[in-house]
């Protein structure tokens, strides 16, 4: 497994898009949060912007920024990491050279799991540094009050990239695949949920869509809007962390299963 992931590393570490994606993630994750210092204050009832930087809420604010970055940069990279292999016909060459289809599958999913892990470690480091430098009195119990968010962060990143791999494998053409990835998450699924599902059936089940569940692993810290929605609709705006984890795990498993069976059967 390590060898497979190392081979993927050899493929990508000198590639420009991969380097740009990583650089953006590394720079933007802490710096977007730090931009919060420029805000005069947050909408009531939160008020002061201090919550963005202190334990334990720093996890949520930083996590939500990471949510967008992972969706946009890592998901995008996952899509092109497959489509470019189809364009260059290197995936089939990998198999001709000696990988089994199972090796291809393990290499791809192993490397997005590893990349998600590295992204999560960086997230944890950033949160710890920012939290410690901004919290006046640090209690360890407060620091890790919502420690499960670390696992949810990893799963969030892995889930976006799994969806990216799925789209990449099924579509194979870079531009169309990237377009579908972005359009599905940003337009199609929201329209399905808010326009269609909610119109016919205003029920918590409107949340149980794959990319929404992924997003709700680390939901937007928008308590006033969430409360307003809950009052009107009679159920919460976001899934609970537990619901989000289970839903994401189920969808991710299904996507992995589809990719695996597709890869086994397809002529390359």
């Amino acid at each position, binding site marked *: 497994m390590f*060898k497979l992931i*190392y*081979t993927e590393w*050899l*493929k990508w570490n*000198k*590639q*420009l898009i991969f380097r740009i994606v990583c650089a953006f993630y590394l720079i933007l994750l802490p710096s977007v949060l730090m931009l919060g210092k420029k805000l005069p204050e947050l909408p009531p009832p939160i008020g002061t912007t201090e919550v963005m930087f202190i334990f334990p809420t720093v996890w949520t604010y930083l996590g939500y920024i990471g949510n967008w970055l992972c969706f946009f940069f890592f998901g995008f990279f996952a899509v092109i990491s497959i489509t470019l292999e189809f364009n*260059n*016909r*290197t995936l*089939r*060459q*990998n*198999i*001709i*050279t*000696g*990988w*089994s*289809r199972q*090796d291809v599958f393990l290499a791809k999913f192993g490397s997005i799991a590893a990349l998600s892990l590295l992204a999560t470690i960086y997230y944890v480091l950033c949160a710890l540094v920012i939290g410690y430098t901004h919290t006046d009195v640090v209690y360890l119990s407060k620091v890790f009050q919502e420690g499960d968010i670390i696992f949810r962060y990893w799963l969030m990143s892995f889930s976006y990239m799994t969806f990216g791999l799925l789209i990449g494998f099924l579509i194979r053409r870079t531009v169309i695949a990237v377009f579908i990835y972005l359009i599905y998450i940003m337009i199609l699924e929201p329209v399905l949920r808010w326009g269609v599902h909610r119109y016919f059936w205003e029920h918590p089940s409107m949340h149980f869509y794959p990319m929404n569940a992924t997003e709700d692993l680390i939901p937007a810290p928008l308590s006033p809007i969430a409360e307003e929605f809950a009052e009107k609709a009679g159920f919460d705006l976001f899934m609970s962390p537990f619901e989000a984890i289970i839903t994401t795990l189920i969808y991710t498993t299904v996507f992995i299963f589809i990719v695996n069976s597709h890869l086994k*059967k397809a*002529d*390359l």
Partner: protein
Amino acid sequence: MILQTKQLTKEFGPLRAVERLNLEIEKGMVFGMLGPNGSGKTTTLGMVLGIIHPSAGSFEWFGGQRGSNPRRFLGALLETPNFYPYLSAEDNLKIVAQIKRIDKPDIDRALEIVNLLQRKKSKFKTYSLGMKQRLAIASAMIGDPEVLIFDEPTNGLDPQGIAEVRETILQIAQMGKTIIMASHILDEVEKICSHVAIIKNGRLLATGPVGAIINDDILIEIGAEDKAQLQGFLPTLTGFSKIEETDFGFLLYLQSELPTSSINRAAFENGIIINHLRRRQKSLEAEFLEITNQN
């Protein structure tokens, strides 16, 4: 036995790209798969290399003695050279070595054989087509595999590139490797291969040693002012397998070596004035077309 296919078949919808193909390739052969474009050569190689699933039939590498994934013991290139364009030759070959699970690959040696050592740090996308093709050969050589597979290795190359690639393949053949090469160029197969299989519309038309399948018949073109008289005289000659009438007179298929001067003398002694006498080798293209057209 290096490779054996049994009734190998591939259908793409209603199209039968390969039909019940039986091939036997033994150690040390330089085996040419000869056929026109679209005859099913690449599809066949795609199947035995694991990227295309056969519709029916089976194949077996090394008599089944190299486990479930024998491709690591082969070196192969299919159609175009496929590499990561943004990586150097060296980095691309490192990936190949990783996939083949070779810890200390001799990348420099492989690049030296194909004369690319000077350019090993250059990115693949900066290479000319000939260099790309040669890199593909170097890549196939990584790990010193017993069997090398080349698919149209000189396709799209200029004459110098063709000569270089052929020279390289011949060198590899001299190392005692088994080579399987698909080509639509008869001359190439004749110059490089020891054995040949002729394939058309996915079917095997003929297979065997190159000399037995593609024989270089010697032909004599002969013409006289009095064609009828010549026609009467020709059957009295011996050493021909066939006589064919043509525009200029007749075409004789020689079975054994016979100087034209002796034909001329015999004709003259019979009072026939020859006005056209020419010795030539049957063109290989003609032979190939003959085999493929008969079927």
